[in-house]
């Protein structure tokens, strides 16, 4: 008997071919009903492919312009001092050398005394070794910086001219000398090499430095030696040259960088930001996945009879699944293709639109690996959301052709489909985590998204359950609205899920952004001093302090010695080979750190472990380390640290650990040494000044003017200016984040529109029947409006709670700040939800209300 039922004559490959043939025939009917599906996938894929491509284009841009950004093939930099002549001689064996100095200084108008903090750069004749310094008038840099009539030339950013209200030809006081502005800088090739800017650029010839008096022993001046090698070596050769330089001059204490990693800080920022935006793009894709699931479900609903026919004609359930799987894959690929085309265009568009904002030229190109990632994410998301409803097609009974059986719609598909769904989700999550720079963050983010997803499903069920159990209300409209919320096939799950995710993310980001700004501008500046004064020479320290006491008698002053140094080794391990115990404090090992010495425990900190040294301590050098950094680096009391300060290597033992309150913005150092460590070393001082009560801006500016005029070589940083600088940066980032998260909201809206459209047919039926039995249009509008408003409001409340918790977690647990719920943000989210649901709902309903009953009734 079994001879004709056992085993199909098809091999797996043939079955797939046949399924594909059937699938293609079915798709002849066009893509109607799949537009939302395609749009959702296209949007998510475009976001991911776009973000990753732009990040890659930036990275490539940095690499391509590495020489110009770095200012050479290699850069050697030291702080406080110049390198020894024999070290310069060594550099000259490598190639052409250009020496520049960078420091922060005050520039003042000679007439009004108005002053501004500038990022000063003193260059030699060889500068720039690579790239061009573009000046507005087109003259050469040498010409512009030359001395004329005994006054040196200087070129500046336009921002400085605007800040001081001066023009080309005017003179500015700089330290103890005066320079004439001869031109405006339009393009500076190595601007990125400098790090964060606190003020606009002012560029002078290095011949001016002695006249300014700005460079004194202990001054915070960085000397950079750039080397141009001929012929330019490739990246591998560069590495070996770097090694050779480190080996040849081990005592130089210089920081060596090659054009291969011209701007590691910027690269890190780009990577982190791109990772975050990729996760946001993935959220958009997941929200869109709800649209995919909706589309597949309603498509298969219309295909019940066809599926039953196939089964009557001898098709197995598995074969039916394959037919629709192939169709779904084809449609997903169409969406992915559109997404990839859009995503591939984004770097080109971004390059054009952001050319004035971006620090480097985007290397806009088509990046196959990044597009491949978009394809992978798109495919996996489509599968993750489609397998479940597709699995149900397996069990459509052939008897569906003979009678309408209302089976429970929530029946689970077979185990193999549940398993396949689980595997797909797992692969998706693994890839997302694996490709993240910060895996913990990715895990938390994905966990939160998954949690919100599950919660939203539960919330939707709860709403339907509650609506069903609600006691009967008298208002017909409200009764109708409540019935619509819980009836089978209601919009509730789709609306709550799609809008809920997007809105939660938006609320979370808005609250994080708002809280960050509040922290920056309110909390910190209350405690923070008003001024930092840098580079106060020891011999002028007392006079400077006396002036401040005289000008601001009610202000509080703090003064500490200040040096800069780099950590060379920890526990005997070189810092570039040192592996921290935990993540978080790698920054301590990078670049220079501020270093000070103290007889007593500084303010703003508490002794956590160990003991403080006696005031007259005279033994081996000791150091007090920041508790958090020490924990994260894996350092304990008794460990030895070697720092290079002023070209000297100093090894000190950790005597104690301090708990520092960083947010106070006061004077804080990771490392505080025992006073004998730097006995006799030339150094400058750092001073802060703060008022107990807030003073008017004029008072601050007046003090600044007096101090700058009296001590032209002391650099003053007004905290309010610095904070507004940081605020601006946060604002720019916030805009990018908001832009990315709005993609999620667009995906939400698409899914919402799709869900509303899917319910359109049954809405027409309802509306016509109700109209036939006497319902007026206003009553119907009220009923539908109420339904959408209830759904929107519940979703908004959820989004507020979920987004609020997420923001609270990020602000308090990750960033260590304090959290405040912002009512305007909350109200805004609720409003968005209401406008979207009621707006979209009623737009659709308006057309329904226009339906004439007769034609619909005839076709029932």
């Amino acid at each position: 008997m079994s001879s004709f039922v056992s085993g199909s004559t098809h091999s797996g490959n043939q079955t797939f071919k046949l399924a594909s043939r059937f699938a293609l025939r079915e798709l002849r009917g066009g893509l109607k009903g799949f537009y939302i599906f395609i749009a959702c996938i296209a949007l998510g894929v475009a976001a991911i492919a776009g973000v990753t491509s732009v990040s890659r284009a930036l990275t490539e841009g940095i690499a391509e312009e590495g020489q110009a950004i770095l200012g050479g093939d290699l850069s050697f930099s030291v702080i406080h001092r110049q390198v020894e002549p024999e070290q310069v001689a060594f550099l000259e064996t490598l190639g052409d050398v250009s020496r520049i100095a960078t420091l922060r200084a005050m520039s003042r108008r000679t007439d009004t005394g108005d002053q501004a903090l500038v990022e000063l750069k003193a260059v030699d004749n060889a500068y720039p070794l690579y790239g061009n310094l573009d000046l507005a008038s087109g003259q050469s840099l040498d010409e512009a910086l030359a001395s004329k009539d005994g006054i040196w030339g200087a070129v500046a950013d336009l921002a400085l001219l605007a800040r001081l209200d001066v023009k080309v030809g005017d003179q500015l006081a700089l330290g103890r000398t005066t320079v004439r502005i001869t031109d405006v800088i339009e393009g500076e090739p190595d601007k990125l090499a400098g790090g964060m800017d606190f003020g606009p650029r002012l560029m002078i010839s290095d011949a001016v430095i002695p006249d300014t008096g700005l460079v004194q022993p202990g001054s915070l001046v960085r000397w950079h030696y750039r080397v141009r090698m001929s012929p330019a070596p490739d990246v591998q050769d560069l590495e070996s040259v770097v090694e050779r330089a480190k080996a040849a001059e081990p005592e130089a204490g210089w920081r060596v960088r090659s054009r291969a990693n011209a701007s590691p800080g910027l690269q890190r920022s780009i990577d982190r930001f791109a990772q975050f935006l990729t996760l946001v793009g993935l959220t958009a894709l997941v929200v869109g996945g709800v649209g995919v699931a909706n589309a597949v479900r309603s498509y298969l609903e219309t295909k019940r009879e066809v599926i039953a026919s196939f089964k009557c004609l001898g098709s197995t359930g598995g074969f039916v699944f394959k037919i629709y799987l192939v169709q779904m894959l084809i449609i997903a690929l169409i969406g992915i293709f559109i997404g990839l085309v859009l995503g591939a265009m984004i770097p080109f568009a971004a390059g054009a639109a952001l050319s004035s904002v971006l620090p480097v030229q985007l290397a806009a190109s088509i990046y196959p690996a990044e597009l491949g990632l978009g394809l992978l994410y798109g495919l996996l998301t489509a599968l993750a959301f489609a397998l479940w409803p597709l699995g149900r097609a397996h069990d459509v009974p052939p008897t569906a052709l003979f009678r309408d059986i209302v089976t429970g719609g929530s029946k689970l598909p077979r185990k193999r489909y549940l398993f396949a769904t689980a595997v797909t989700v797992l692969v998706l999550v693994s890839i997302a985590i694996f490709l993240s720079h910060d895996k913990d963050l990715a895990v938390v983010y994905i966990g939160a998204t998954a949690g919100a997803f599950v919660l939203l499903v539960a919330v939707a069920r709860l709403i339907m359950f509650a609506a069903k159990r609600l006691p009967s209300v008298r208002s017909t409209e409200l009764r109708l609205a409540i019935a619509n919320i819980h009836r089978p096939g209601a919009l509730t799950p789709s609306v709550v899920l799609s809008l809920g995710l997007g809105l939660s993310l938006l609320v979370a980001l808005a609250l994080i952004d708002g809280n960050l700004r509040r922290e920056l501008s309110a909390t910190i500046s209350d405690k923070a001093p008003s001024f930092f004064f840098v580079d106060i020479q020891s011999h002028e320290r007392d006079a400077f302090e006396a002036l401040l006491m005289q000008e601001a008698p009610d202000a509080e002053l703090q003064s500490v010695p200040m040096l800069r140094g780099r950590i060379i080794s920890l526990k005997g391990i070189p810092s570039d080979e040192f592996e921290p115990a935990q993540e978080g404090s790698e920054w301590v090992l990078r670049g220079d750190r501020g270093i000070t010495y103290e007889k007593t425990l500084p303010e703003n900190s508490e002794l956590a472990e160990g003991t403080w040294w006696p005031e007259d301590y005279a033994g081996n050098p000791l150091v007090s380390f920041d508790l958090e950094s020490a924990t994260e680096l894996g350092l304990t009391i008794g460990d030895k640290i070697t720092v290079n300060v002023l070209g000297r290597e100093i090894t000190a033992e950790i005597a104690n650990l301090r708990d520092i309150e960083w947010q106070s913005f006061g004077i804080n150092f990771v490392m505080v040494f025992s006073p004998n460590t730097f006995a006799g070393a030339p150094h400058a001082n750092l001073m802060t000044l703060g008022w107990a009560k807030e003073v008017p801006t004029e008072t601050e500016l007046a003090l600044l003017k007096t101090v700058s005029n009296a001590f032209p070589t002391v650099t003053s940083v007004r905290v309010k200016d610095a904070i507004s600088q940081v605020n601006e940066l946060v604002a720019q980032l916030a805009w990018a984040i908001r832009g990315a998260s709005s993609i999620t909201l667009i995906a939400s809206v698409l899914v919402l529109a799709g869900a509303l459209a899917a319910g359109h047919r049954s809405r027409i039926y309802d509306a016509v029947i109700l109209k036939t039995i006497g319902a007026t249009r206003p009553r119907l509008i009220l009923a539908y409006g109420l339904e959408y408003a209830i759904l929107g409001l519940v979703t908004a409340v959820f989004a507020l709670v979920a987004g609020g918790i997420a923001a609270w977690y990020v602000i308090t647990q990750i960033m260590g700040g304090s959290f405040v719920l912002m009512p305007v943000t909350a109200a805004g989210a609720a409003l968005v939800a209401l406008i979207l649901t009621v707006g979209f709902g009623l737009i659709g309903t308006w057309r329904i209300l226009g339906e004439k009953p007769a034609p619909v009734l005839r076709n029932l």
Partner: protein
Amino acid sequence: MVAERPIVEGMYLSGRRSRARCKGLIMTNSPAITLKNVHLTLGEGAGRVHILKGIDLDIEKGTSVGLVGPSGSGKSTLLMVMAGLERADEGSVEVAGSQLGPLSEDQLARFRGRNVGIIFQSFHLVPNMTALENVAVPLELAGDSSAFEKAKAELEAVGLGHRMHHYPAQMSGGEQQRVAVARALVVEPQILIADEPTGNLDESTGAQIVDLMFSAQRDRKTTLVLVTHDPSLAEKCDRMIRMRSGEVEEDHAGSAHLPEEVSA
């Protein structure tokens, strides 16, 4: 080989061994369909209905049987049990020599594809496939490499040679049902099952479909079981079974002449 009943032997002899065309079929002289004590209950909870209540039935090969009875009497359900579309809760169902009870769902699907042709009241053609493709589907599913040649021949046989590449929506109801008949016959089924095949058609179009089915049954010696509300159609069958409340109420020969060897 001694036949248990003359009617079977007669059918078998007159069949000119045409069943041999059916691949892999173990030839027996048993009836085409044998139901023993078949019970079926559908629905859940308070909605449970005992639809078939102990049906015993033998349907001889090559005969035509009309199932009649009021709505809800269980005739369509009985048809589905015979086609392997619905499983009996109790009793045994043997169709074309196969016990359907032990077969898995997928085995049942393949069994249907090769042995049972089904014609529906509302045609149920696949809307996005042409007439030719619709007819070829069961052969394609069975892995027949000459699916399209056979489908073409079958469509020509039902007089639709000129409509091969039309979609269902471009054809009249009668044409669609002729495509459905061609699709049911193209696998050379042993059993042809029809659920009110003329229910959606006007009288003269319906008559054409009826002619097609009966001539196929006669020429190919197929066993035809049809459900109908139309007494004149039922009368055309060799045998008429009247159902009521899930039981066989009446079972008698139709007005059509039985094959001469049998009636003699």
